[in-house]
């Protein structure tokens, strides 16, 4: 038995029925089990399926790439020592650091810090890692941050996939001169933010290079920036955005993609 659900201590929350084996060796409540069934049923009946998803945090500022080596991460308690030993394909240099752990990839140049993962289970862990890093390096100057979500979706039906492209970019005007025109790439930008921050939201849509045939790739770049303040490196603002906006940002990006896909 993996986890035994029990009634929550507070009377305001739901009382759980007996544990029920619903997901392999994982014991979960009846309510949760039926929720899973609904999720799986919904997934099976969707015109598109999520094949690959990834998230990246991109910070722009002034960085010292040579700091970011596996031993530094483990000595600061940010990753277990065993993970530091397992780091692969890593390059640590004054100009560039690349570090691949099983759940996160870190790439740093003088102007850019990127932490990314293709494991949805670790989106929050990557955010925590970045917050921890720059809580330690709190005097690092930075001015911009991007919270990015990338997804590859597969269309079950190729005809529907083509129709999706036509709906997004009607071809009437193109058919006057082109034979069988198709949409390959589209970029849509919201130039202002409605959450009080400066920045923009950019959605890229392309034919997927990884999921073929009938694959569509989305990237939502949720971009924040702030003016340099006298005597403040900007780290505090970046950490505040990561702490308060990360979850909202990913949810908004998912909703945007789902909303576009819903026309399919």
């Amino acid at each position: 038995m993996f986890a035994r659900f029990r009634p929550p201590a507070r009377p305001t929350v739901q009382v759980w029925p007996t544990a029920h084996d619903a997901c392999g060796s994982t014991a979960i409540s009846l309510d949760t089990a039926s929720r899973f069934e609904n999720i799986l049923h919904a997934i099976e009946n969707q015109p598109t399926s999520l094949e690959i998803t990834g998230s990246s945090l991109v910070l722009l500022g002034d960085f010292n790439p040579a700091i970011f080596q596996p031993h530094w991460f483990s000595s600061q308690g940010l990753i277990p020592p065993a993970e530091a030993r397992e780091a692969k394909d890593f390059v640590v240099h004054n100009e560039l650091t690349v570090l691949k752990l099983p759940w996160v990839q870190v790439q740093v140049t003088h102007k850019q810090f990127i932490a990314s993962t293709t494991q949805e289970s670790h989106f929050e862990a990557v955010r925590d890692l970045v917050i921890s890093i720059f809580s330690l390096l709190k005097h690092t100057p930075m001015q911009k941050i991007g919270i990015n979500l990338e997804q590859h979706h597969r269309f079950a039906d190729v005809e529907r996939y083509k129709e999706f492209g036509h709906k997004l970019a009607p071809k009437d005007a193109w058919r006057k001169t082109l034979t069988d025109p198709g949409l390959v790439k589209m970029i849509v930008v919201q130039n202002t933010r409605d959450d009080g921050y400066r920045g923009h939201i950019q959605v890229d849509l392309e034919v997927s290079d990884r999921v073929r045939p009938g694959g569509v790739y989305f990237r939502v770049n949720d971009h924040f920036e702030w003016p340099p303040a006298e005597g403040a490196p900007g780290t505090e603002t970046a950490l505040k955005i990561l702490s308060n906006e990360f979850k909202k940002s990913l949810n908004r990006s998912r909703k945007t993609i789902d909303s576009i896909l819903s026309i399919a």
Partner: protein
Amino acid sequence: MTLTQPDRSSSTLIERRHEDTAGTELAMLSHVRDLRLLARRVIQENVDVDQTVEMANRGDLEVNLLALNRKTATRLPPMFLDLRSDERDRFISLQKWECYVLEVYADSFAARLLDLTNPGPEEEAVFPMRRVSAEDRWLVRTGAVFYWNIGEHTDVTGRQRTVSELRFRRLPALTNDDIAAARREGKELHDWLTGESSKG
């Protein structure tokens, strides 16, 4: 004073040892010199093959280690770096919770769960300690935050598995300044709530 070849037959054992050591050192020095020459030859060959270092700068590189007065930028050796994320090893969450530990028992712990996939009422669950990786067990303390994911993992071979995974949040150790700041903040909050003066 003139230098003469020592008469080894008449020297003492200690003297002979000293001479032998000196001989070994000489041999080592010679070996080091050979290595240097070899290294230079390797560099020379690399220059010819890869053009990693321009001929004119070679002397510059040898003496100007801090690059304070280097005439031209050093060119890095050509290398292949795959900076793309490896999407072959991927995980898609079917259900995700953010949790925090309520109580720790001998071989299990209780936690409160916040559903991140479909937000709803908080839930509670008891997890066996063995489900936490050995290196993370020391993190299992009251109040510790962790993420519980159930989802589909696809490995590099394309094999898919439905897996359940716990990952504890790791935060850097608090410094004395952090602790002092937290105490100060706590005291200010206490004073504000109780209406007491911030003095003392």
